[in-house]
């Protein structure tokens, strides 16, 4: 039994009562945190699912164009055409705080803002499918970035939810019952002590009276 470890004194009782109060309040707060995190997490999951499907479709389309391009052009030509990219992307990361989970937020800047400027080659010696492929790639890129953000947020939030859930459960099923049981044990022990003291006093009084007055 958990109650045997505590010394049944009033001081410990007061201390335990304080802890129980804190545990109850912490439990309530953590439960609220978990619920809110879960709500936001499910939104993120939904968004992630949509984005992932979109990215996968977009990439598959881009790859198939690239496949066609590479079968029309010789591998050397293809490599040469894409050897030196004209476009470069710089990423900017900010940190957003969602219920104490720090999730990244990306924004990006491209060197060339004109969408027709991304082709790093002359059009004369390359096939049109390559242009298609790059075009699709550039379109799917924005979604890919969003996907990275959402997926990372999802992972971080999942971790936090797991942690919070464990804490809530530990408080609910271990800490709080244990504390209440200890408090009950001490209260009963104190009452018992009080009873035995009372009985002893009554007995003593009886003995004293008998001695003094020969009182029966």
């Amino acid at each position, binding site marked *: 039994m958990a109650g045997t470890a505590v010394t049944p004194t009033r001081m410990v009782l007061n201390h335990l009562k304080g802890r129980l109060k804190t545990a109850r309040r912490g439990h309530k707060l953590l439960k609220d945190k978990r619920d809110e995190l879960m709500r936001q997490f499910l939104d993120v*999951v939904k968004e992630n699912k949509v984005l992932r499907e979109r990215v*996968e479709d977009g990439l598959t389309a881009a790859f198939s164009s690239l496949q066609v391009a590479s079968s029309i052009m010789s591998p050397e030509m293809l490599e040469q055409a894409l050897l030196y990219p004209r*476009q470069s992307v710089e990423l900017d990361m900010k940190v957003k705080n969602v219920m104490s989970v720090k999730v990244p937020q990306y924004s990006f800047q491209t060197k060339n803002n004109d969408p027709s400027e991304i082709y790093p080659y002359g059009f004369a010696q390359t096939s049109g499918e390559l242009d298609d492929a790059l075009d699709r790639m550039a379109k799917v890129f924005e979604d890919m970035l969003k996907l990275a953000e959402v997926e990372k947020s999802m992972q971080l939030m999942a971790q936090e939810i797991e942690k919070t859930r464990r804490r809530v459960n530990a408080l609910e099923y271990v800490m709080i019952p244990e504390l209440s049981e200890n408090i009950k044990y001490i209260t009963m022990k104190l009452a018992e002590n009080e009873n035995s003291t009372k009985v002893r006093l009554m007995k003593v009084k009886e003995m004293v009276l008998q001695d003094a007055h020969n009182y029966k």
Partner: protein
Amino acid sequence: MPGYPGMSYGKGCVICMLKIAVIGGKDTVIGFKAVGLEACPASSVAEARQVLHELTREGSEYAIIYIEEKLAKDLQPEIDRFKDSPSPAIIMIPGRNGSLGLGLNALKSAVERAVGTNILGD
């Protein structure tokens, strides 16, 4: 704030420009190179592992690493190491031969982790 590249020193947020890398087969990454991402071709899993280590070492400026599913499926332990750290984000993308469904698996496992059970169905 530890864990975020470029923000580790001084007061406030010193955000430097970060990069995005793509690890995959040679013909997969070539397309990404054209849109301005850093292409890291890797023909085998061992090579991909090497590249991944290189890209994720301390003080690395890569914030997002896209990795082809074909290679990612054998690098799961390495990828899982970064699951709980805020940066870098390692994201699986389908390869040339279509999706293997690993990306959606990652989503399911995150849900399972958070909720304790798969509530998405299927």
